[in-house]
């Protein structure tokens, strides 16, 4: 949580006030709720009920508590392509399914000209949640950032960042049997920072820089408190990585592939 707060704080320092377009403030509790949120335009925000334009603090984050909820968010603009969308979401409960897309996705919501600049901060606390984050852009403008903190067991996380802009992912997993899959691809260098603490967690990370400038950077820390954790890292383009593993018993398998 402390790290999460720090991240939020830093982002708040750097996040510039954006144009005031579509804004949803959300604070809802309940089980088996279905949320379908579509924001078409640029500089869209999904945040908390106290959020203002330039504010980005934990109390200003959209809050959904309860289990077995389905949360679908689509942000993007097929007309002006400016991007700069923001999701600040905290979900507490088990069995929730999150699909959080910025710049739209491969299913026709965008015509491929999104200019990026998307920010997303997600906090999930519970068991058996499925989190899918997609950030994509096709026109060079600003980089995209995703911060994810997952607390709980048996969670599944998939994060895909694609496009020509630089991508950054900071992910923290606390719990057991959680799987994190991250795919960063495009023509710019990518950065990923993953910290996983618990038993039997695994991280599958792919960084693909097809551009001619810059190097990918991966920093992975595995704190294995019982069952072994595993890492499968694939890097293309410029490559830097750091894997730190502490094991209470037997360490897991670490696989690194570069330049493929």
């Amino acid at each position, binding site marked *: 949580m402390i790290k999460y707060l720090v991240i939020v704080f830093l982002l708040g320092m750097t996040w510039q006030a954006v144009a005031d377009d579509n*804004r949803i*403030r959300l604070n809802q*509790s309940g089980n088996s*709720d279905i949320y*379908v949120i*579509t924001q*078409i335009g640029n500089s869209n925000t999904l945040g908390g009920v106290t959020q203002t334009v330039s504010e980005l603090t934990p109390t200003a984050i959209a809050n959904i508590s309860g289990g077995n909820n389905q949360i679908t968010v689509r942000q993007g603009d097929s007309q002006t392509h400016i991007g700069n969308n923001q999701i600040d979401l905290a979900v507490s409960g088990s069995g929730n399914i999150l699909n959080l897309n910025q710049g739209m996705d491969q299913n026709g919501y965008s015509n491929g000209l999104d200019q990026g600049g998307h920010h997303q901060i997600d906090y999930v606390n519970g068991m058996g949640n499925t989190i899918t984050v997609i950030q994509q852009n096709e026109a060079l403008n600003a980089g995209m950032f995703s911060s994810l903190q997952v607390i709980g067991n048996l969670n599944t996380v998939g994060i895909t960042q694609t496009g020509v802009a630089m991508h950054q992912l900071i992910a923290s997993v606390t719990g057991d049997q959680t799987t994190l899959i991250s795919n960063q691809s495009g023509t710019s260098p990518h950065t990923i920072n993953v910290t996983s603490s618990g038993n039997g967690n695994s991280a599958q990370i792919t960084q693909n820089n097809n551009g001619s400038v810059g190097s990918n950077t991966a920093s992975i820390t595995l704190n294995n408190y019982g069952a072994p954790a595993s890492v499968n890292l694939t890097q293309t383009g410029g490559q830097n990585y750091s894997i730190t593993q502490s094991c209470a018993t037997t360490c897991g398998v670490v696989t690194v592939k570069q330049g493929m």
Partner: protein
Amino acid sequence: MKLIIKYAKALTAIWFAIFFFRTAFADSGDYLYINQIGTGSTVNIEQTGDLAYIGGVNSDTASTSNRANLASTGGAQTVNITQADNNKLKLNYNTTGTLNFTGGSYTNATIDVGGQTLTSPSSGNNVTYTGTAGASGSAVTLNANVQGGTGNTISIINTGATTTSSIFNTAINGGGNSLTITAPGQSNTITTIQGMASSMVNQITATADVVGGTGQWVGTLNKLPDTPFAAAAGTTSTSSSIVMGLASGDSSNTIYVGQANTGQKANISLGSSSSNNGISLAQYGTGVNSSVISLTGNSSLINASQSGTGATNILGLVFTGDYNKIATLTQSGTSGTNIFGNVDGSVANTVNPITLAGYSTIGSLTQSAGSGINSITTIGLSGATTTVTANTISTLSQTGSGAGNNTIGTLSLTGGSNTIASLTQSGTGAGNNTIGTLSLTGGSNTIASLTQSGTGAGNNTITSLTLGDGSNTLTGLSQSSTGAGNNTITSMSLTGGTNKVTSISQTASSANNTISNLSMTGGSNTIGSITQSGTAANSLAVSTSEGGNTITSISQSGTGTNGASITFTGASNTLASLAQSGGDTNSFTLALTGSTNTVTATQISGASGQSNTANITGTGSGNTFTFSQHR
């Protein structure tokens, strides 16, 4: 000089006609005492001098026993009497035939048809009185009494345009008689008293009027069994008054009242158990027209019309019986004030509303004015119990073109199964359209159409609209303004559950549309659509306190500010569609407490720099939220 004519002949002895013809020319102060009993005779009497007198034998005072007596035990008689000014006539006319009486100024005539002193009331007579007025200020008094006879026709016509303060008293106790009184002049009084109940229909027509005259008065009527009555006072004169009352037990009467020119007043009341009566009131004066119609019986039919250029029309109606019906109520004037629910001409008086008891009907209620004011203080349709009472207002309309306001203070339908088919307020000027309190309670009430519209600067306002006790229906509510006026519904509540509102529409070109509070309690209420469109601010707030409510569509559109607040409390509420479009700021607030609710909202902002905002808070499971924001 005295002249005595006596003629008698037994009918059993003569089968052929015997004519009696005698003409008397009398000087001033002449007296004629006549007592004729015969068949098929003709009498012509003419008195040309002043202070002449026709009466009974050897008498110059008025009493039933000493009146001149014209009677027949056989065929018809024709009697023609002509008198000059200042004469007296005391006559028992108890024969079949025709009596023509022409009086002068200051004539005091008493004519009994079928007089009580006779053992066999006559029938089938024609009595015609023609008053020839003298100089201005010459008053005439005529007492025409029909006692027990049937089929008589009495026509009283005072032709003198300048005759003043004449009195025409008629008492009819019989059936099948016809009375017509025409009294032009100033300050005339017509009194008709209908006596014995009869299965036969009497018909009375009374008219008091003169060009330029004032102070006409027609009434008082009591006990009108099965009697059509038509009264007209002041068709061309001013300050006329009609007062009529029906006692208890009378039924199936018809009353027609017509008044014109300025300062007309009518008070009509029907007794507590009188029923099936018909009243038609027409006032079309240019000054103040005021009327009160009071019905305590059942099943009467009312038609009332008040109109005139620049007139102030005031009409009070109080019905306490059941099954009464107002077929048409019309008030119109180009610059005056139209007021329903006021009784004595005082605009400030609000104590006597229009009230109808159970099973009552208002077919058409219309007010129209140019620059004047249309005002309905209170209309209440209520039943004695909360069971089905089935009151109906088919059409209620207020229209104006000037600066005057259209106002309904309180309109309430209680008791259940009440209906307002159409309620319209419209104006083209600066006047406001206002409904203070509109309530339908008791269940199963219906408003088929409620419309407020204006093209000027006036506002359309409904302060309080209540559908209570459940299963009520409001088919269409529309407020529209093409001018600077605002459309406002301050409070609208659906209580008791299973109420249905088909559509609420607010349209403004440059002003604001506001629904401050639309609350639904009792559950299972339905609102088909709420539409707000305009270039200024659209705002609405909807709340539920129990579940099962449905709002099919909410639409806010315009270039100004759109704001919607929805509070769902309870389970299984549905907002199928909320659409905000075009505003420089679209805002939507959802507060939800309950389960299995469904909310779908779409916000589409206008130009760059404009924004959509949605705030969602609440607690509940199994809810479905679908939000779409576009720019």
